[in-house]
């Protein structure tokens, strides 16, 4: 997506001026009329100033969206209460540890046996350096962060249909692909094929760039030798003393490399969200949800299954039951409601909103995703393969192996992310009983690391379509759906606003959930102040 940092900033400045001069009600009106009330972004902790006269807000869902809303609204003087289906804070911000029990839909129960301090993040597992809101909340809530490694040049790329299934190192594929492309492009230049597109002066620079970028030699060839091995690694590394002569490695042939499709895995690390630096909380992603939960002690009502949401001109009334024992229906009321229940669930709950919002909720299904965590006796990926963190990608159904970006050089045991799959593979793995998900993931992984066969201990597999409180991993938007429904999903319907990753343009990311929530409470606050009373 193309960003226009300058234009929105100047608009924001204009609205601030209007707000300062004429009050927030007029500012809100101006923003709405110009269509920029939905503008988001993060420039620091939200400031909700003004007297809100004890206005009450009921928040549905104690994920990051719901908890950030409660945290900020309470600070601004609102009376807040959260209803949460689970018996813990966090929602999809979630880590599974040894001793945890997880029961998915259908009653399939897994007892997590991971050793002390080891975990699986079934949901989000990385925080890009430009997810400003999430990083700021981690700082404010004192959640300690450590680097998450996405790209590791020593990690593997594998396709069972190429190179006889042999795993290639990321650096080998990266170097050979660039080298061959640089050689081809240099040939085109030197044969005059680009004379029309590139001036004589620029052709010289382009050739120089190809030597630099692709490690081609003085005659523009990419071939076995010191130049290419400095990128792709050696058959025998340079050493000291009498054993110091390095032995260069043989690049892959262009044709075989192209047909292997291994190059497709290189681009993953070039995506904005996956560029360094990336962070993770020490001890598991769930540390953020826990920290929010501590801040909001007493505000969150756990084990509350929402069964109906009604509203009138004065407020909102929400019916709920105990999610574990059922029992009598109870009611929670407030003047306003921020609803962060996933659209996949919300679409099934009787909800008193207009057709535009209802249609928007019903338009979203949730994507399939699975994650499988495997514990091994020792960290063989480090000890045998020199892989410290990062990701091996494979064309096998497990899609990738994620190595832990923490506790390096520990003797073990260690937990790998053995599978993280979307789409057709995820649907098929979700259809397996949990123990089969784990067994198949070990089978696939053993084709990449034969050490699996001797070192595997136990595992846990989470399929997001079986998660009782989401029915999938994240809302599935297309451009057509956004054009038709997004504004209606985010609009204020009477006394109800929706928030969550599904009400953001960063779907499936925690940052999206936070920005959506902050935008919702900003608009709610403007409404409350504009109404002149706290009614």
């Amino acid at each position, binding site marked *: 997506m193309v960003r226009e940092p300058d234009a929105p900033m100047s608009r924001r400045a204009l609205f601030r001026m209007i707000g300062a001069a004429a009050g927030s009600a007029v500012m809100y009106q101006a923003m709405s009329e110009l269509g920029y009330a939905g503008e988001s972004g993060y420039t620091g902790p939200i400031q909700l100033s003004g007297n809100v006269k004890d206005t009450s807000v009921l928040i549905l869902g104690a994920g990051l969206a719901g908890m950030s809303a409660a945290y900020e609204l309470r600070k601004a003087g609102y009376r807040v209460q959260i209803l949460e*289906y689970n018996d813990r804070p966090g929602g999809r911000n979630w880590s599974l540890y040894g001793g945890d029990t997880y029961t998915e*839909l*259908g009653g399939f129960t897994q007892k997590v046996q991971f050793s002390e301090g080891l975990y699986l993040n079934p949901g989000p597992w990385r925080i890009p350096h430009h997810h400003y809101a999430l990083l700021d909340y981690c700082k404010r809530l004192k959640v300690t962060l450590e680097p998450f490694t996405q790209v590791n040049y020593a990690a*593997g790329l*594998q*396709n*069972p*249909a190429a*190179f*006889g*299934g*042999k*795993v290639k*190192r990321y650096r080998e594929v990266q170097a050979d692909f660039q080298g061959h492309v640089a050689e081809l492009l240099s040939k085109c230049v030197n044969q005059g094929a680009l004379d029309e597109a590139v001036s004589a002066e620029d052709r010289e620079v382009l050739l120089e760039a190809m030597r630099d970028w692709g490690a081609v030699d003085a005659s523009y060839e990419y071939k076995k030798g010191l130049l290419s091995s400095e990128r792709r690694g050696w058959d025998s*590394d340079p050493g000291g003393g009498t054993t110091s002569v390095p032995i260069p490695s043989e690049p892959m042939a262009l044709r075989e490399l192209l047909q292997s*499709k291994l190059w497709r895995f290189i681009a993953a690390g070039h995506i904005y969200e996956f560029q360094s630096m990336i962070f993770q909380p020490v001890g598991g992603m769930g540390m953020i949800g826990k920290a929010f939960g501590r801040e909001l002690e007493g505000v969150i009502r756990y084990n509350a*299954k*929402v069964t109906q949401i009604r509203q009138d001109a004065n407020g909102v009334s929400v019916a709920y039951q105990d*999610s574990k024992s059922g029992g009598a229906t109870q009611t929670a009321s407030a003047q306003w409601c921020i609803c962060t*229940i996933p659209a*996949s*669930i919300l*679409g*099934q*709950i009787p909800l008193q909103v207009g057709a535009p919002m209802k249609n928007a909720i*019903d338009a979203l*299904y*949730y*994507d*399939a995703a699975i994650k499988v965590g495997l514990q091994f006796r020792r960290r063989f990926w480090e*000890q*045998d*393969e*020199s892989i410290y963190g990062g990701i091996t990608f494979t*064309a*096998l*159904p497990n899609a990738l192996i994620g190595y832990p970006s923490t506790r390096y050089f520990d003797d073990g045991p260690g937990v790998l992310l053995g599978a993280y799959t979307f*789409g*057709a*593979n995820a*649907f*098929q793995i*979700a*259809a397996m009983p949990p123990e089969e998900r784990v067994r198949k993931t070990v*089978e696939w992984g*053993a*084709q*990449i690391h*034969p050490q699996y066969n001797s070192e595997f201990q136990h595992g846990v597999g989470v*399929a997001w*379509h*079986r*998660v*009782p*409180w*989401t*029915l*999938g991993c994240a809302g*599935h938007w297309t451009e057509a759906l956004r054009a038709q429904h997004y504004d209606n999903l985010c609009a204020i319907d009477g006394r109800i606003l929706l928030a969550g990753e599904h009400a953001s343009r960063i779907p499936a990311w925690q940052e999206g959930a936070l920005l959506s929530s902050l935008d919702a409470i900003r608009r709610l606050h403007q409404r409350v102040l504009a109404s002149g009373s706290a009614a």
Partner: protein
Amino acid sequence: MSAHRWRLLPAVALLAVAALGARTVRSQEIFAGKYPQQSGEDLFRNICQGCHMPDAKGAIGAGSYPALASNPRLAAAIYPITVVLHGQRAMPPFGETLSDEQIASVLNYVRTHFGNRYRDLITPTAVNARR
């Protein structure tokens, strides 16, 4: 030795791929994101039961998955055809990942099992007409 371990892999990996054989999805199909199963039962066991459960009785959590077992809404073929092709609320669409033949097969399987006894068979042509 450690840095070179992966160079010893090819023979092992080849054997493992061969051993997986027809029971596992082939790599080309993984890239394409399609489903290799063809029979109605295989499709149900590898896709539908993920949400609708192995006994087709659905499940209830914060929300729910409807039962396909003994479900009168399967009586008129057009309804399940449309839902599978295009999705409906939490139900994802499968029109782009399953062929007309696969959708007909799985619907015929569900409509004749789990307490459903609908005698009219759904044809791939009938599925195609709703695309």
